[in-house]
C-alpha cells in the first residue's frame, strides 16, 4: 500500500512543462523524432543556457554562440572561416541555424545525421572548442547551478552526455524562422513590390530547384559550380561517402535570413549577395546556365532580402539567457 501511495504522489509531482513547436500550417511535419526527446520548457531553457555557456570549451572562453550569434541568424558574421579558441582557424564557414527540426543532415558535407549528435563535433574539434563531452559532463555535475536545471528538465540532478545533447537539441529545434516578408506574402498578409515579385519569378525559375521553398533548401548535396579552393582542398560530400561522384557537392544551405549570414558559401568566399548572384550568372558548371541582366540581378537580390525575419533575429527567447 505504501508503495502505491508513493507511486501516486510521484505522478502528481509537477514535471517539466511540455512545449509545442509553432510553425506555419502549410509546412510539412518536422523530421526530428520528438517522441525520443519530448520538448519541454525546462529542457529548452537548459539547452539555451548550455548553448550560451563557454563552459563547453576547454579554456572556458567560447560558447556555441561565439560562432552562432542570434542577431546574425546564428551565423558567424565577417568570418569566412570559423574562429575557435585561442584564435585557431577552422576550415569552414559557420552556417546560419534555422528550422533545424526539418533538416535531414548537418554540416556542409552532411557528416552528422542527427541533430542530437551535432554538438559533439564543435565540442571536440581542436580548432573549435577543443574539449570533450566527458569533461563537460564532469564540469556540469560539479557546478553550483546546473544540477537544479537538470532536475527541472529531466527529473534528475545528474548530467549525462545524453541529457546534455538532448537539451541542446531542444533549444536548437525551437529556432524556427517563418516570419519574413516572404512568409507574410505566402500567408496573404503582405504584398511584394514589383521588384521583389520579379525577383521571386527569377528565383523560382533559376534557384528553387535546389533552394526549394519553404525551407529554401531541398536538403540534398549539390554542385553549384564553385571551383575548388586549392588551399583548403575541401571536396565536400565525398569525404563522407568516399564516392567520386560526390566530389565538390555541398549541402544546399537555407537562404532564410541570407541578408545577415554573410560571408557566403562553405568557405565564406563571397562577401556580398551581389557576388553570389554574379557567380551564378557567370558559372558554366551548372546544368542550365543562367542569363541574368543587371536589372534581373538587382531584382533577385531584392527578393532574397524578403527572407529576412526580424522577429527571428531579435526573438528574446533565442538570445543570451537572463539570470
Amino acid at each position: 500500500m505504501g508503495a502505491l501511495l508513493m507511486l501516486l504522489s510521484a505522478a502528481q509531482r509537477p514535471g517539466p512543462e511540455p512545449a509545442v513547436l509553432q510553425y506555419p500550417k502549410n509546412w510539412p511535419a518536422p523530421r526530428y523524432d520528438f517522441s525520443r526527446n519530448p520538448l519541454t520548457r525546462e529542457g529548452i531553457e537548459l539547452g539555451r543556457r548550455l548553448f550560451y555557456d563557454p563552459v563547453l570549451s576547454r579554456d572556458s572562453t567560447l560558447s556555441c554562440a561565439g560562432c552562432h550569434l542570434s542577431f546574425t541568424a546564428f551565423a558567424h558574421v565577417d568570418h569566412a572561416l570559423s574562429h575557435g579558441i585561442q584564435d585557431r582557424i577552422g576550415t569552414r564557414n559557420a552556417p546560419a541555424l534555422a528550422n533545424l527540426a526539418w533538416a535531414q543532415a548537418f554540416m556542409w558535407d552532411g557528416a552528422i545525421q542527427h541533430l542530437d549528435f551535432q554538438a559533439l563535433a564543435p565540442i571536440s574539434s581542436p580548432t573549435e572548442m577543443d574539449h570533450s563531452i566527458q569533461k563537460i559532463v564532469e564540469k556540469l555535475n560539479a557546478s553550483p547551478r546546473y544540477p537544479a536545471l537538470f532536475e527541472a528538465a529531466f527529473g534528475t540532478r545528474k548530467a549525462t552526455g545524453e541529457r546534455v545533447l538532448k537539451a541542446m537539441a531542444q533549444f536548437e529545434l525551437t529556432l524556427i524562422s517563418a516570419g519574413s516578408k516572404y512568409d507574410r506574402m505566402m500567408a496573404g498578409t503582405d504584398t511584394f513590390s514589383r521588384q521583389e515579385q520579379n525577383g521571386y519569378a527569377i528565383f523560382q525559375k533559376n534557384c528553387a530547384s535546389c533552394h526549394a521553398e519553404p525551407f529554401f533548401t531541398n536538403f540534398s548535396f549539390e554542385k553549384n559550380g564553385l571551383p575548388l579552393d586549392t588551399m583548403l582542398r575541401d571536396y565536400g560530400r565525398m569525404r563522407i561517402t568516399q564516392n567520386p561522384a560526390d566530389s565538390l557537392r555541398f549541402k544546399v544551405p537555407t537562404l532564410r535570413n541570407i541578408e545577415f549570414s554573410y560571408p557566403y558559401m562553405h568557405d565564406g568566399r563571397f562577401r556580398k549577395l551581389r557576388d553570389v548572384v554574379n557567380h551564378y550568372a557567370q558559372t558554366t558548371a551548372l546544368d542550365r546556365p543562367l542569363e541574368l541582366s543587371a536589372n534581373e540581378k538587382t531584382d533577385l537580390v531584392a527578393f532574397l532580402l524578403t527572407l529576412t525575419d526580424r522577429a527571428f533575429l531579435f526573438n528574446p527567447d533565442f538570445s543570451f539567457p537572463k539570470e
Partner: protein
Amino acid sequence: MKHLVLCLKYAGLILLCFPAESQNIISLNLGPFYKSEKIALGESLSTPDSLTLHQLRFYLGHFTFYQNNAAILEDKNYHLFDLEEASTLNLTFNLPQNATFDSLAFNLGVDSLTTASGAMGGDLDPTQGMFWTWQSGYINVKMEGFSKKCPARNGEFQFHLGGYLPPYAANQRVELKTGGNSENLLLTLDLAPFFEQVNWVDKHNVMSPGAEAVRLSGILAKSFAIHAQ
C-alpha cells in the same frame, strides 16, 4: 506493471506472485582469446610478434535466444564490453519460465536504426568515448595495442571499427548454435584470425568508416564461439 496490478487484485494470493520461482536466468560470460591463450591487457602473448593489447572495447547487443528457430527472448539493449572492467564481461538474461533455447544471435556493433535515433544513455552515452564526433556514428570496436609486425611508431596499432551508413555499415549479426540449454554460457572471441588477416603494411590504423572497417568487422563476427558451461 501487469504483474503489479495482478498482485494487488489478488492480494490474498500475493505469495503466488512472488517471483523467485519464475526465474530462468542465463548468465553469459565473455572471454577474448588468441587461439587457446587467454588475452589480458598489457601482457604480451606468446606470438612471434609479441602481440599485446592495450585496449579492447566493443558493443554487443540485440541478443535474441531461439528454440527451433522461434525467438523466445529478444533484448534490444546494447552492452559495452571493456576488457579493462571485469564487471562488463558478464551479462544476464531473464528468459521466460521453463523456456529452453538451442541458439542465439546478437549484433557486433550498433545497428543503423539505433544510431539514427539520436542521443542515448547508459552504455550508449557518448561520454563512453565510443562515438565519433566529426562524423556521427558509434565506434563498434576499439582495439589498440602493439605488434612487432606493425610498422607504425613504437609498433602501435589502432583499430576503431564502425560506420553505419551503406555501403560501409560495419555492424554484423552473429548467430551461434548453443547445442542445447545451459544456465551458464561462455562466449569466446578468438582474435587470431583477425590479426592474421590485418594488412600490416598500410592498414594498421583504421579510424574511420570504410571498406577496411567492414572487412575487419566481418572477420571478428566469424570469430565468436559459444560454450555451454
